[in-house]
């Protein structure tokens, strides 16, 4: 008997959809049992320690910053649309916390240095932020970057305390920093 056209494809689609739905359900349920930080095994562990070249080639930078009370590591790229969204918030946080020992480092992720520099020049740079490149994606691999933008918070003891995936806003950035600094104050 001749099969109706598309029948096999329909059966296959239903099977794929069912499998995907089961996977999605399990994924969301299992992982959501932990805090939002649990998706990175790095949270609660010592930060990767490394030296990276500055984006403009003028020197190097240590990760984490040796004298910082809080080091904020942000992975970005010129081709990343959401990195544009969070850019003003990163500038604002760098400015607001400049007297609190908070240091921001933005690391270009799989991007040409010229493109990264053009991106920063277009959106605005801050003398309070260090901009680094990541040859061979060493830092991205060490931090376990899944997709950018991603932002990591490192405390004064060198331990990674938090991670934000997707575009970070100033309130969430500030809250993570406040937690490390022991701030947040009763009214």
């Amino acid at each position, binding site marked *: 008997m001749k099969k109706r056209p598309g029948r096999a494809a329909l059966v296959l689609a239903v099977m794929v959809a069912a499998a995907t739905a089961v996977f999605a359900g399990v*994924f969301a349920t299992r992982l959501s049992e932990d805090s939002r930080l649990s998706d990175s095994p790095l949270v609660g562990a010592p930060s990767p320690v490394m030296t990276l070249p500055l984006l403009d080639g003028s020197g190097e930078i240590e990760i984490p910053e040796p004298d910082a009370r809080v080091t904020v590591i942000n992975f970005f790229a010129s081709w990343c649309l959401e990195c544009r969204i969070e850019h003003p918030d990163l500038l604002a946080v760098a400015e607001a916390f400049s007297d609190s020992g908070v240091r921001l480092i933005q690391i270009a992720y799989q991007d040409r240095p010229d493109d990264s520099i053009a991106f920063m020049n277009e959106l605005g740079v801050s003398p309070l932020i260090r901009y680094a490149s990541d040859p061979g994606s060493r830092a991205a691999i060490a931090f376990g970057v899944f997709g950018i933008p991603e932002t990591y918070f490192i405390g004064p003891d060198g331990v990674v305390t938090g991670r934000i995936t997707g575009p970070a806003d*100033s309130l969430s950035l500030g809250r993570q920093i406040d937690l490390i600094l022991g701030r947040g104050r009763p009214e």
Partner: protein
Amino acid sequence: MSEESHWQARLDQATRDLEELEQQLATDEIPPSTARRLRRVYTEEIEEARLRLAGEASVPADPESPDRDSRSRFWTPGRVTVVAILGTAAAALVISVGWFVQPEDQADADGGEFDPSQYSNETMEAVISANADHPQINGMRLALAGRYFRAGDFARAFAHYRGVLEHDPTAAEEAEALSRLGWMAWAGSGEVQLAIDTLDRALLAAPGYPQALYFKAIVLWCGAGQTTEAVPLLEEASEALPSEEALVAELASARAGEECS
């Protein structure tokens, strides 16, 4: 990758991003404020890519061309069903993953009730700076200005109260900002008339606003020596704020004709 294919890829990506964004917004996965920001970025990306392609790419195919017919024939009901099922499954996956990776703080910041007690001055400064043109941030401006005001840091408080007035305040927000500015004009600079004028503006914005009444009474009594004029304002303020012991004591003192102490 050629320049044309590069921009075509960016156009396709931004279009997909925009479609997913609308889906996420429809399912309340992301707050409207975030959606607005993302939509703007994606739209700009699409416009730029289209402009680039219009200048560099070949002329688009005639919509009545045979190729269009072949595309129409491709979308049989069966194929539409298959694509719909797969699309639904993919959406379920995207939503579940997206929900998982949604930072709690991000959600709180955009959609939740703002509790200023959880944030440092620096965080609030950063939020205000990054959202300087948004009237919705006036609540945070007032909260931060209030901290500075209570700490006696009038310079910082002044800047944020001015910020409130410049960003479409509600009557209550305007009254609070003007009340504090009026008080600072006198307590910080000794400007009695400026203080009274500013406090009158606060009362115009919100008639009977207790803090403006109280501040104006104190400025009249202690700054201008107009004890008699201050008494009715203190009376009205004390009716609105009966638990303020200091106010009650000051009212009694003013009624007795005592000098401000």
